[in-house]
């Protein structure tokens, strides 16, 4: 197995894929952390802002709307990641693995 891993490790497409995956993962994680810590810090430092009604005729406050927004954003970003990873990333990944195992002689037997 080490030889196959080694061969994949020398494939530039593998490193390009790993970089693309990690760029997407860290970008989305950054957005999520900013949203959540923004919310937490707003509760600690700017409760007055969260307490404001959304508009002059509203009972719903900025805080309630922000809370809903943070949850909705998380679900949406999770969807974005799966959509990218289960399509383009997995296709490239299958190519890289097929290439490395073909050179090794015969298809790879996962069992």
């Amino acid at each position, binding site marked *: 197995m080490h030889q196959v891993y080694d061969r994949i490790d020398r494939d530039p497409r593998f490193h390009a894929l790993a970089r693309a995956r990690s760029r997407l993962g860290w970008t989305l994680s950054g957005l*999520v952390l900013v949203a959540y810590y923004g919310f937490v810090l707003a*509760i*600690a430092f700017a409760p007055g802002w969260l307490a404001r009604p959304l508009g002059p005729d509203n009972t719903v406050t900025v805080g*309630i709307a922000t*809370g809903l927004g943070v949850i909705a954003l998380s679900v949406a970003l999770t969807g974005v990641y*799966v959509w990218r990873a289960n399509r383009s990333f997995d296709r490239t990944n299958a190519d890289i693995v097929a290439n490395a195992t073909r050179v090794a002689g015969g298809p790879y037997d*996962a069992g």
Partner: protein
Amino acid sequence: MKKPLLAAALLIGMGASLGALAQATGVTDGMNMNAIAMFLAFVMVSLWITYWAAGRVKSTSDFYTAGGQISGFQNGLAITGDWCSSAALMGIAGLIYTTGFDGLIYSVIPFGAWPLMMFLLADRLRNLGKFTIADIVSVRMARVPIRSLIASAGLAFVVGYLIVQMVGAGTLISSLFGLKYEYAQVIIGFLIIVYVAFGGMVATTYVQLIKAVLLLSGASFITFAVLAKFGFSPEGLYEAAVTNHPTAEKVMQPGGLLSDPINAISCGVMLLFGGAAMPHVLMRFFTVPDAKEARRSVAWAATFIGYFYLLTFVIGYGAVVFVMKDPQFLDAAGVIKGGANMAAIHLAEAMGGDLLLGFISAVAFATIVAVVAGLTIAGASAISHDLYANILRHGRASDAEVMKVSRFASIGLGILGIILGIAFKEENIAYLIVLPFTISSTVFFPVLFLAMYWRRLTTTGIVVGGWLGLASAVVMLVVGPTIWKDILGHAAPIFPYKYPALFSMAISSVTMIVVSLLDNSARARAEVAAFDDQFVRSQTGLGAEGAARH
């Protein structure tokens, strides 16, 4: 296990349920017949599933991971069942009922764990893991010290979480069904033992899946009924809540909770990183065939759990409107019957009468049972796979031996749950939930994250940092405001913050990094060199544990 033994266990289960029925009808004068009928239906169905599942559990792989053959959608539902404890429905509704907006904070912040789990952990966890989270770290680290640390922390996590669930369950069930508290403990403990010891992960998965469907449909129905009263205008609901609540418009605004910045950040660290690395939830990633299905599971789980948290925005304020001023839900002093945690249950009765009350009561029961089953199988796997097979027997035990230990461990944990549930009766145990989340953010998250992302991490670094972090977390909790001041009655806490996670996670992570960098042993060099192979496997899934072949 032997079929006659299982058949006997099933008979006892049904007998106990019928006994519960007889006793409950005697005590409550048949008041809650719907609840009891639906509770019995759930018990019968779950025992039937266990009987079916028992025939499918032939190896340790079946027992721990259902043979890796659960689909992403099913697993997403089961994870929802694992994650949403009774605290999520009744606790949050109760908090909103009393404090308004501050209760909602507990709906929003824990959810952040889901996207983080997806972006940083899910793929790599599935590609590296087998049965437990210790397997992931053991890919390139020394087996014995790593598993001792993770299994010990895991058992502390499970026991802390278990006490909270068992005590909550006993109180809830005795007030819902009119059962004696101790009797409720024994029934739950017994059901868990039957599900886990006989049906393993297969039965646990289906119990969690059914519970998730029940919970989501019950909560959806209450939300629909509440919104229908206001012509589906949330604005109307919130106006009525402001009119009804003693704090008036403050019910829509942040109150005193998390007003201290350090405490707020520390609580956020605990819920986000601790929530992202809970062993009983991560263990579910190994029940699907590959990383693609693991990602699908997380996406479905995030959708269902996010949807559920959105419903709490309506259910909590709905209780303020429809329960707070209704004399049938209040005692002579005008206080809500059964405490604020009953707000969601009373709201169900207000919206749908006896039938919906019965349904939601059965849902609450199923919720607790499913969470406790998930915790029990996580604890049993730590004992049998990490401690027994890998440490005690150095990986040389046979599959049949490990199976036997797993089943006995499940039985032991079920009995331990009953004993602890009874021992902690009438204690205020809400603070105990801080312990498992703190352990998770201090030990599991940094260890998993660094092992998968940082080449230079070594066994010595993990062991020193992990134990130090664990010890510091426990000490800070004990000398903190909740235990030292409120429970032990000292004048002032030695450690000023309620949530130590920020500090304990910093201690464990920094120590792991520093000790690893200083570690120049031959073993450390081999572990660093093994990172490349581990990295390729974690990215490509090549060499990952696949679905079991039968």
